């Protein structure tokens, strides 16, 4: 190997060089800005984590697995996983191999960072070595890999259904420029390297191509223009990168260490939230996941579009999208980079100014509270919604009585809301006020167990309430314990139920298997195609502020269709809101777990 040019320079590298410098500066500036936006303690925490060996190692592993190999995507959709990892990992390897070549053959040029990229232009093949042949083979291999990936990407763009995507994101203008320049980079590189292969050498891809081209071109005149084109494609891609979805490449590499450092969203737009938004690759997986997307008009309200509007700062749309969402959490569950769509929206809601705010400080608890009886150690809190589905509370009480539990139903007559609805509406401060009131009320009973039958309440009791000495437990968990302790006998019926995972209980609290085990004891059980973390919101969620009754119908029907597909006789759920919503449209019986267990309990 020897260098062809003493200067080691040709003007065609300039587009790439300019693009690269621009991107590096932009990213450096971005990093500093995001770091500056972090609260002081978060910043400290993050910087510390970078030098902690365990987290540093985890960072590297996660970046490698998520950003290059797309392991999560492989699991979800192997074809998509292959497409993404072939491009990302292939490109990464090309860069790495380029550097190795430079280090091996002209180590003094390593400072010029265009050199590894355009290595084949600047060197001529000398004596062939095994090492060179292997390197050249690898270079061609990864280029081929990338080209296959690009081919798949083009197919996906034209027919996304082949990849199992019903709907995909509509790219913006900069996205298109980035996309087309990305598509152009690698075929151009193949051309450029092929034209140069008789000088610089090559492998199984470039040498035959070179031979074919030479058959009818016969000169080297088109060598330099293709290198120019290659460099320009790179330059264009790098220039639009910060303004397109491809920003997710650098952003995600930053997001992973920050998440590993335990940082959370603390501001609706700045710092960690900003990074999450930038990390969205706009892959559109959330579109199919979103229960609202059953209606075409709602597609633009999925998380991917929220992220896009947040980047653009389109306040009107941000507000619309934030208010519409059911907060079912499915987009977050399927997201490859872990964008917290529901939380981002709640933060937008919380950032609004209100002329009027509720004030609960004046609530006189003595009016709500019956005279305290110290004997009862078990409390039952049914929550507001359950008043509209009395079958649930009646069944819970019945089961508790059957098991001989001495309990007290603390909101049988009047009660306070748990605060979760206020929280989802972004009214954090008011929610906290209400929670403190409820805490005071509950602690005054001196009990040690609090049973909840509403997953909306359960979620917030579990996450936000401070109830020292009181175990907060979902009724199903408690019933399971009663059964295990032999205080409750369950008789199995021959009805086959499909269990619908309520959003707040499943994705919200991670409770998936407990209810299924219990249901399995009481009845036959079938699974819907979309279950557990993939369960489809019933459409009745309080998470959505602006969806009105009529707009929710289609969502409910879609969710029900998924349950019907299980071919079960009846539907089981464990949320008053799901029960209420399903019962309205369902063509088969809908029962709460409490009802089923009460019927089965002896």
């Amino acid at each position: 190997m020897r260098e062809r040019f003493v200067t080691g320079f040709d003007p065609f590298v300039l587009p790439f060089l300019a693009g690269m410098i621009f991107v590096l500066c932009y990213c450096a500036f971005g990093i500093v800005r995001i770091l500056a936006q972090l609260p002081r303690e978060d910043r400290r925490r993050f910087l510390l984590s970078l030098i902690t060996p365990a987290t540093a190692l985890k960072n590297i592993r996660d970046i490698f697995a998520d950003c290059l190999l797309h392991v999560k995507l492989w699991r979800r959709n192997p074809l998509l996983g292959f497409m993404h990892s072939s491009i990302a990992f292939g490109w990464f390897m090309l860069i790495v191999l380029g550097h190795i070549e430079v280090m091996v053959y002209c180590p003094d040029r390593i400072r010029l960072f265009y050199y590894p990229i355009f290595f084949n232009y600047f060197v001529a093949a000398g004596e062939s070595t095994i090492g060179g042949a292997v390197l050249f083979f690898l270079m061609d291999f990864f280029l081929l890999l990338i080209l296959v990936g690009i081919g798949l990407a083009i197919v996906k763009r034209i027919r996304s259904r082949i990849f199992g995507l019903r709907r995909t994101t509509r790219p913006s203008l900069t996205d298109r420029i980035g996309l087309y320049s990305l598509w152009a980079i690698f075929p151009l590189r193949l051309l450029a390297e092929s034209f140069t292969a008789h000088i610089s050498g090559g492998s199984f891809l470039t040498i035959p191509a070179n031979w074919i081209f030479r058959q009818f071109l016969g000169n080297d005149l088109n060598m330099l223009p293709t290198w120019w084109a290659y460099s320009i494609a790179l330059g264009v891609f790098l220039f639009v990168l910060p303004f397109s979805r491809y920003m997710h490449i650098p952003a995600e590499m930053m997001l992973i260490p920050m998440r590993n450092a335990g940082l959370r969203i603390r501001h609706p737009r700045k710092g960690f939230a900003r990074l999450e938004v930038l990390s969205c690759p706009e892959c559109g997986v959330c579109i199919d996941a979103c229960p609202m997307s059953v209606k075409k008009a709602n597609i633009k309200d999925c998380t991917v579009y929220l992220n896009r509007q947040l980047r653009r700062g389109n306040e009107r749309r941000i507000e619309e999208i934030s208010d519409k969402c059911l907060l079912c959490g499915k987009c977050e569950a399927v997201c490859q980079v872990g964008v917290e769509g529901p939380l981002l929206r709640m933060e937008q809601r919380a950032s609004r100014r209100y002329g009027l705010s509720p004030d609960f400080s004046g609530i006189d608890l003595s009016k709500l509270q019956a005279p305290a009886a110290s004997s009862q150690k078990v409390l039952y809190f049914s929550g507001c919604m359950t008043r509209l589905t009395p079958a649930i509370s009646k069944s819970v009480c019945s089961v508790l009585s059957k098991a001989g539990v001495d309990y007290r139903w603390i909101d049988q007559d009047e009660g306070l809301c748990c605060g979760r609805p206020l929280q989802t509406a972004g009214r954090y401060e008011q929610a906290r006020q209400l929670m403190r009131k409820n805490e005071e009320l509950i602690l005054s009973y001196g009990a040690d167990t609090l049973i909840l039958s509403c997953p909306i309440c359960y979620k917030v009791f579990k996450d936000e309430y401070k109830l020292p000495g009181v175990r907060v437990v979902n009724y199903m968990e408690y019933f399971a314990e009663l059964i295990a302790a032999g205080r409750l006998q369950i008789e199995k019926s021959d009805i086959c139920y499909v269990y619908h995972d309520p959003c707040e209980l499943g994705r919200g609290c991670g409770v998936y298997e407990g209810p299924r085990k219990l249901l399995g004891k009481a009845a036959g059980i079938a699974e819907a195609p979309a279950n557990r973390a993939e369960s489809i919101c019933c459409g009745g969620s309080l998470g959505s502020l602006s969806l009105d009754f009529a707009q929710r119908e289609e969502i409910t029907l879609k969710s029900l269709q998924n349950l019907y597909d299980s071919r079960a006789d009846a539907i089981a759920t464990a949320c008053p809101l799901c029960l209420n919503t399903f019962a309205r449209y369902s063509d088969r019986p809908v029962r709460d777990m409490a009802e089923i267990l009460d019927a089965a309990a002896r």
Partner: protein
Amino acid sequence: MIDFGFGLARSSAVELDKVDLSLYKELERLEPGIRKCIACGSCSATCTAGPWSGMSVRKLILNLQRGKDVSGMLSACMLCGKCSIVCPRGINTRQLILSLCRIYDNK
């Protein structure tokens, strides 16, 4: 001015053609469903905050239509959403309350 020990009392009659409906109109623009209210009282009866605070969406809507101040009522709403669920006319009452809280900012 002579102090007679008594004075003119303001009429309690609402002059429907003269009341200031700007607040209602603004809310109506945001939540056109408000027009569908038939004052059945389901929302008020089911209201978690109602029994101890006097919160009533029905009264809220009527009072707005009569140009009266409703800010006092709103201060007890816990946004629990039961009123939205029971409304026979499908009015999105919860969003209505939130929107109203926001409009008050501009007044």
